[in-house]
């Protein structure tokens, strides 16, 4: 229906305008999350093509991407100035947590990779 499509176009336009207002560091984090998920989807597509023979490798690859995406989302929540809950948490502290958790995640991933 023409009104629906124009409504959708209006909606998308407003969303992109609002998004442009977000601070840069949050945008970096969002980009990071999107790339991680894209990498995971690539791996799933490959598995779909050739079968899941070294299943442990597939799992560790996918989980590494998903895990790091999750940690990045946590970081975004904590760093976001508009989030009242984490007002007192310095962003450097959140970043340090992010780094630490990522290193532990990747140690486990590397062990499972085989």
């Amino acid at each position: 229906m023409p009104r629906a499509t124009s409504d959708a176009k209006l909606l998308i336009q407003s969303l992109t305008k609002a998004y442009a207002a977000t601070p840069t560091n949050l945008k970096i984090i969002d980009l990071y999350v999107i790339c991680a998920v894209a990498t995971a989807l690539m791996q799933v597509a490959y598995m779909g093509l050739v079968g899941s023979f070294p299943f442990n490798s597939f799992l560790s690859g996918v989980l590494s991407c998903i895990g790091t995406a999750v940690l990045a989302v946590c970081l975004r929540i904590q760093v976001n100035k508009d989030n009242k809950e984490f007002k007192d948490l310095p962003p450097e502290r959140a970043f340090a947590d992010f780094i630490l958790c990522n290193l532990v995640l990747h140690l486990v991933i590397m062990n499972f990779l085989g």
Partner: protein
Amino acid sequence: MAGRRPAPAAFLILVLTAAFASISSAVRPVSDAHRSAASELFAPSADGSFGDLESTYEAVRTFQILGLDRYKSVTGKACEFAAEKLASPASSSAKDLFHAVRISGVLGCSVDAGVYDVVVARLKAVIKDTNSLLEFYYSVGGLLSIKEQGHNIVLSDAESTFHAIKALSQSDGRWRYDTNSAESSTFAAGIALEALAGVVSLADAEVDPSMIGVVKSDIVKLFDTIKSYDDGTFYFDEKPVDATEYKGPVMTSASVVRGVTAFTAVASGKLNIPGEKILGLAKFFLGIGLPGSAKDCFNQIESLSFLENNRVFVPLILSLPSKVFSLTSKDQLKVEVTTVFGSAAPPLKVNLVQVLGSDSKVITSDNKELQFDRDNNVHYLDIAPLKIDVGKYSLVFEISLQEPDHETVYATGGKNTENVFITGLIKVDKAEIGISDNDAGATESVQKLDLSKDTKVSLSANHLQKLRLSFQLTTPLGHTFKPHQVFLKLKHESKVEHLFVVPGSARQFKLVLDFLGLVEKFYYLSGRYELEFAVGDAAMENSFLRPLGHLELDLPEAPEKAPRPPAQAVDPFSKFGPKAEISHIFRSPEKRPPKELSLAFTGLTLLPFIGFLIGLMHLGVNMKNFPSLPGPAAFASLFHAGIGAVLLLYVLFWLKLDLFTTLKYLGFLSVFLVFVGHRTLSYLSSASTKQKTA
């Protein structure tokens, strides 16, 4: 009178034979068999030597006694060996000189008189200084051997040497080795007697006869320690004190024989030892048979050569060239009486006084004299007139010397018992085989078996019938014969066998197989059974194993719980031979994708990362917040370097490290990273708060 005389004699003989019932001697005098055994045992090594001096002496002396030409070829080497030792008497021991001198004596090596003079002086010095029995023995023996080779030697002060050796004797006739040792030994006694005999021969003046008398009584006491077996064999042995010192009965007895024969040769008068002990010693050495070691061979042959003609008693050995006599070929009983080396004995008579069967049952006690065949030196007798049937017997012989003064010179041992076999053809007759019904008892079909012909019977029976086999066994003299083995064997087609012993009575042998009772034993196997008939005995010349034919047996069906026949022997090659090759089934490997596809997707996976970098550029990422001051800047770079190092460690972990090494390095790195990161981030946070407040 003639009737009364045999009665007490028979009683005496009965008592004696009861005592000697188990005696049997299986000795034969020294023969070519001993000579070939000696050649083999004393084979020289590759360079022509026999080992040390003692072994060389033993070898050449044995060859000399047996008359083997063999030793002529090793003469040169042995003479050289001996001459080496004789050339430097000061450095050689008395033992080496002793053996070297004796080797030269046996082989007739030519030795300079000057060399021997030095040796004599050395040996005389040893005699003067020593008080050890062995040293006396070696030095006196060496001097004696040199004297026998033609040099004039006189032992001055022989009486004191005699006394010194005699002082080592003990009250039981044995000798100690020297004044310090407490143990006395029979072997040492033999050595001492030989040494004393040597001293007497070498003495310039006659030795005190009373001393010689004392030594003679010592010898008699020594012979009281002799040991014996039941069959009249006597030997010397001593308790092993030390495993290395134990000489064994052969060596000990040989030493005593050497000593006693040597001493009695130089001493006058007779020695008070019973002849049976000397004969027993001879039987001991002959009873060794063909010896297994070179030392045993030497001791055996040398002792026998000394016993062959000695001044105590010369033993005469009774032996049978053959112990099996056949009635069929009308063999004669042949007996030889010789010295230990097989030489002719003095005139004598041999009587067969008794024949004993199994269980020492007396068969006949007639005293039959054996006739003497002078040309072959053998006593013989026809056994057919004795009417002895086939079987195993003990023959008791008595030897009587024809000249009365030979009684003190020769030892015959009185009664000698020998075990012999008398064999003959056993007749099998009235052989019948047949099948009979159970109840009736009347034989349905009886066939006469003629075992001389090759006919085969063909019988058939069922489980309600019986098989009967009967026959008679007769000896050449017409008596019933009970052989060791009399079997009937039934063999099924499947190779299962059953063996039955045929019981025999006084009149005949009869076997009845009642199949009704044997059904289980036969494992319910019906079918064709081959019949085999076996009769055998040691005294039977025509033992046989004859197939009789076959029997078709019809047995009922086996019930469920019936025992299975035992598994038959499998051909070992099929059981233990190589088995079929096993082809293992492996899990088929997973299908891997083609390499190009994998590489393509690797590239595709890296694509989002590139997209990330491009996006960052779009957003205008910069490094403005990087600390400019050198201190914090260093920490910041170390922070990034630390993270990079951890990631590199992970890559190495994936490639080749193991978890524990990784964790170890990670521990160090993380401590570093935490420190550095803390510094960096706290600097950054303080910088941003300053910015906010400012």
